[in-house]
């Protein structure tokens, strides 16, 4: 029990600090695709263009641009594909919700199958097999 208290006390403050500029820039850079690389994010790609774009993002964050403004800038220049996060609207929303939907369907299917009642009793051979195992 003491352990739980220690953990809660230790972790609670950590979850409330707002992101500073550098962290915000990195967060934005890791959700934007590097346009001329091979699929990595701006934060991850080992290419000069990625470094330049990252510096650009840092600059804009320091100038006071909001997240949406920066994303909007990149989308306008490089297209929708530069966002690594599917949007929270339209088909993108469907994508985010799909796992939850499948979980719901799966649980429902399992529970309703069980409620349908037992199948015919297993043959004697199967019962014997169960004893032997």
């Amino acid at each position, binding site marked *: 029990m003491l352990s739980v208290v220690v953990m809660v006390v230790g972790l609670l403050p950590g979850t409330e600090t707002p992101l500073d500029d550098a962290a915000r820039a990195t967060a934005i850079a890791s959700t934007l695709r590097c346009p001329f690389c091979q699929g990595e994010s701006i934060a991850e790609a080992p290419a000069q263009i990625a470094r330049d774009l990252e510096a650009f993002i840092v600059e804009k964050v320091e100038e006071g641009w909001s997240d949406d403004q920066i994303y909007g800038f990149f989308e306008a220049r490089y297209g929708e594909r530069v966002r690594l996060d599917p949007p929270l609207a339209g088909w993108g929303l469907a*994508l985010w919700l799909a796992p939850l939907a499948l979980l719901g369907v799966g649980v429902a299917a399992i529970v309703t199958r069980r409620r349908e009642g037992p199948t015919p009793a*297993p043959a004697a051979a199967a019962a014997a097999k169960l004893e032997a195992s």
Partner: protein
Amino acid sequence: MSSLVGYLGVLAAIGGSAALGWVGYQVSRGRRQAAALRTPVLFVLLGAVAAMAALETAILSHDFTVAYVARTTATTTPFVFLLASGWAALEGSIVLWGLVLAVFTFLVARTVATGDGLGAAALSVMGLVGVFWFGMMATVANPFQVCTAAGAVGCRATSWWPFAAAVAAPDGVGPNPLLQNHILMAVHPPMLYVGYVGLTVPYAFAMAALARGERGTVWLERTHRWSLVAWCFLTCGILLGAWWSYEVLGWGGYWAWDPVENAALLPWLVTTAFLHSAAVQRRRGMLQAWNFALVIAAFALTLLGTFLTRSGVILSVHSFTQSAVGPTILAFLGLVVAGSLALFALRVHVVSSAPRLESFASREGAFLLNNLLLTLFAFTVLIGTMYPLLVEAFTGRQVSVGRPFFDRVTLPMAFALLLAVGIGPIAPYRIARPAVVWTRVRTPLRVALVLGAGAVLVGVRSVPTVIVVVLAAFVVAVIARQLWAQAIRQRQEVGLGKAVTRVLRRDPGYWGGQIAHIGLALIAVAIATSTALAVRQEVRLAPGDAVAVDDYCVRYEGSFTQQTAQRSVEGAELTLLRADCTTAIRTMTPRLNRYPNSSQAVATPDVRTGFIDDVYVSLAGGTADDLVIDVFVFPLMWLLWLGGLVTVAGGIWSLALRRTGRRQTGEPAPAGVIAGG
């Protein structure tokens, strides 16, 4: 000459596979003896061997009349990469696939005797699958195309007709730079292919069982070892891929949720679910419908994976080819999925007659939950990978789905899985009384919470990391406690060490799984620490400068260049020092490898692996006098690789000692079946 021999080999393999499809069917219906299978199988095997041998001969002798050789190798390519070129590029990889399939077909055929209808039918299915792969080799993915017009380097025109007038290119283009940068590239694909192709065997037996309307668990018993072996190789292949990405690719990570990485992960997830689910069916006769569905899904996903990787439909770090192969694989995938599901729908009511789940709180319930979670995980990765493709196909818009989506959505599933891994294996069968479970879980839970608190005290402030530490510690502690509890019963007779070994040997399937679970827990911790606690810093240095990064200090000594026949290297020599900037640890040499056939250089990092953390340095740009490097510090990175090894070791343990196979069904084993297999 090699072209001709190779092409004839492919044709022989097609003929053999088609014949096998037919003869297998005949044998399974009792109309012919099993000996009739021998010839088709031999044709398939020898044809596949001839194709691979011819290809490698052409490569190793620099026969640039073969278009594939001219496209993927050069006279300056080192021997190992020459050898690896046999499977590193598109057509060659399919030749390797065919060879592995042929060998497995041969091995399965050896277990089929007259009267073994199931085995013969399974061989028939494998033959039909072989027709597809060897058929591809003969048509859209032909490695033996002849060079009919040469360019300065490589071929300008090719012909599939083996007797066309062959012109030898003056030199080859050479392998893709990423493929000749590190020795691991030679090993990673074959490992994965053995895993992929290995899944064909349980699939074939499942189809055979469905088609014949056979009840029981025979098909599972006979293919259990195959599934385990395939799983072990898949796990190895994925780990090697992650290690390659980390050591070679310079972006400071081991997993990018890249479509091709996902293509390997998907069959692995489903096969893991299948292995667990099959254990329940063998023991309790339940989850039969699940098992059919899972093995069909696993096989279909290997095809999907090949499609994603080899069709060029997704631009990623891996796929660099575009050809007619894509639509062909897609068509076959569609056929397999439609056909298998149709057969499944038609027959499943015949073959599944199982005792119902008595209680969700039981080992069976845990397995069912496991099935659900792993399937959910796979489904999520699948839709995330396919979403950009589908959107582009239907609307023309180009979108991306990357790490942010995958990480966020799979994290809760991973937590749930870890929890299930902890409790599931110690839950009693049929009904788990809470008191029983609590005694097995009480102490490990306390240990886990203490370790979690310890992590917080040591300075970890990331909530997900602490959760992972608690869950992983829980898993390991539960397993350790159970092993201990079973071993001390025998401690009086033999020593403790021997008692432990005895327990492990008594039920290798179970304990192999538990060992693998320990490996999984270690991997989970390593992923958490190396992600949440990693430090990354971009550093600018002039020669002689030293900069502090985390607990270390990096000093730039100077740059260097190197020229070999294969490539030209530009690198930086740095000294890694302790925080005081005076005690040297070692020299680090990150570099850029430039290959003659490509303008893009491959950034190769240098990694220093330590007990507490890894220091990872890669070149990020700048000039020799104004160097820009990325320095990463990854805590506990070695735990990832150790965890991977332990996971594979668990799989091998399940395999290696499984000599006393338990025959669970009433059907007499056919004479040809390997005992205990």
